[in-house]
């Protein structure tokens, strides 16, 4: 059985798996999701592919307690606006933390998670979410 939406999601795999956006070398602005044209420089803009370091902080967030069918198992969960260190803001789920411990300004790093499933027999979509930065033994 052919499935609706598979091709549309597939085209974005690279960007949502690896947090790949664009950087304009003319004005220095970073974009996520990737853009075809720099809205600041227009025709003077020089856009190149850019892989984000995956570090940032929570700009704002909300706790979801009433969720759509696909997300019921995760309730309550946190959806936040994450400000990446390079500049852009994106919307993502915050995981590996209890919702009541999430704070504005908290440092987060990207992680790889299941985003949604197209039903029990459908494809599984994976991509970025964010989690609090971890303690690493021997790292300053």
């Amino acid at each position, binding site marked *: 059985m052919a499935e609706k939406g598979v091709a549309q999601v597939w085209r974005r*795999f*690279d960007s949502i*798996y*690896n947090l790949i956006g664009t950087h304009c070398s003319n004005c220095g602005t970073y974009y996520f999701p990737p853009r075809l044209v720099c809205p600041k420089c227009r025709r003077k803009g020089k856009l190149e592919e850019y*892989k984000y370091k995956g570090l940032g902080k929570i700009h704002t967030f909300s706790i979801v307690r009433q969720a759509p*069918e696909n997300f*019921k*198992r*995760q309730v309550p969960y946190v959806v936040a606006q994450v400000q990446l260190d390079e500049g852009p803001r994106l919307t993502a*789920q915050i*995981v*590996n933390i*209890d919702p009541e411990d999430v704070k504005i300004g908290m440092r987060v790093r990207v*992680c*790889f*998670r*299941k*985003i949604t499933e197209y039903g*029990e027999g459908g494809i*599984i979509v*994976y991509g970025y*979410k964010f989690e609090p930065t*971890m*303690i*690493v*033994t*021997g*790292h300053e």
Partner: protein
Amino acid sequence: MVGIIGYGVYIPRYRIKTEEIACVWGEDGEAMAHGLRVFEKSLPGPDEDVVTISTEAARNAVKYAELDPKRIGAVYVGSESHPYAVKPTGTIVSEAIGCSTDMTCADFEFACKAGTAAVQACMGLVSSKMIDVGLAIGADTAQGRPGDALEYSAAAGGVAILIGKENPVATIETTTSFTTDTPDFWRREGEDFPSHGARFTGEPAYFRHVEEGAKALMKKTDTTIDDYDYFVFHQPNGKFPMAMGKTLGVPMEKLEDSLVVKDIGNTYSASAMMGLARILDIADPGSKIFMVSYGSGAGSDAFSIVVEDEIEAHRGEVPTVDDYIKRKTYVNYSIYAKYRRKIKALG
């Protein structure tokens, strides 16, 4: 010589205590925990599976090795809980860690030793110069039938090992395997939970294969227990590897550092590899490690490994096994059931 040029692990944050599971089924939790030597086990979050666990472990391995992922020529993921029945886990992992398209990839299955089988395949490809670097992963989100003995130990975690020749952090001197047709544990297509031969899982299965594997490796390398500093055996629970050590005459102090099972349970395809990773986290250069994995069905893979000076240049970049063990939050049985899809109504 071929060796480990990097490795990385991942253990989900959630834990459930043996006592909590025992309480639901009217068992004596304390006696159960001490009998099995499993005090708590890890479980995946509702948005984690073998693909996400493998990816996190592999990203750690790549960072640890300071490797350009485009140099990876093979990605093999060993697991018994691949999310798709048809569609490889490895292709998703490869793309998520930034591999090139010029590489070979496949999923491996051999119960709990699928990960070490992947290590052996990568060793062959690297030794024969077919590839530059190979990535072998063992990862699982193991499930036990509610109320079954396996429910106390079936856990989640993953280990990724990069195999190559350039500046290894540990050299793999040699490997041997011992394989028979033994129906100790199985799961048929479409079944949610595995079946096992109960008492049959001990003597003719785990103990025979691990012991024969260990003896074969010592014979091949002309070594004895005294030649090794650390021992790692597959850990279906804490009791089995300890009994195996006793049979083989391994002093407890050479075995105990690898016994991560007491804190996280049996991570199946990652189990022996997780024990190895914990040793690689702490061992001094020059240390010799003896590892034997075990997979039901049945077989064992034995490895003789030497830690190199290079290892000191890589530590402190990615979380250690203990960093992940310490990062935890406890859940009760109802949250566990919700996350593990034991409640069918939630889909």
